[in-house]
């Protein structure tokens, strides 16, 4: 079947806005930073640990409403989803590429030091 109703209610949107702004770096992932449940989520955790960045991890496997709402909020269909300074930065591939180029470190530093 096809579900056309939006998962992103005004209340959920409000909640997500607060959530992504609650910390400078927020990672929505499958599992937790200590027990990632998927290789893609694990990759981003390892990158953030490598950069020694303080971040909030949110396990989307525990909240189906959050999971569906975030896909719409971010306009991004998969997880993990990395937010920096309240803005969607990317998924695993973008984060990895930005880490390798040094761009991620710059963006994170700018966010944390502002």
């Amino acid at each position: 079947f096809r579900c056309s109703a939006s998962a992103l209610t005004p209340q959920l949107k409000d909640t997500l806005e607060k959530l992504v702004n609650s910390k400078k770096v927020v990672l929505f992932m499958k599992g937790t930073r200590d027990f990632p449940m998927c290789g893609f989520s694990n990759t981003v955790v390892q990158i953030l640990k490598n950069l020694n960045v303080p971040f909030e991890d949110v396990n989307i496997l525990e909240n189906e409403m959050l999971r569906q709402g975030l896909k719409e909020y971010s306009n991004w269909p998969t997880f993990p989803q990395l937010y920096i300074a309240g803005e969607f930065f990317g998924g695993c591939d973008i984060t990895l590429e930005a880490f390798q180029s040094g761009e991620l470190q710059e963006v994170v530093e700018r966010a944390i030091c502002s």
Partner: protein
Amino acid sequence: KHQGHSQEQVEASLTSKLNPVHLEVIDTSGGCGASFAVEIVSEQFEGKRLLERHRIVNAALEDEMKEIHALSIKKAQTPQQWKPISEDSAITTPTTDA
């Protein structure tokens, strides 16, 4: 027989929507058809940041994404970015390492 989307379907959607000059879709699922890696070179990425390019690819596969468990976009380049690398990679590969 096939539950997930086949590699051919992913290729067909990307081809018809993004008119790529180079496209490589790799089934990384080990056969179940639910996990893909994609390399794509298209004029439509011109002037777009990487995040926007990935969004274009995701949007082109909107229907397939409902069943794909994992999509890895390894490369999303413009023809100008792609050509020099494929023709003489030794010369044009940029290094920022000291």
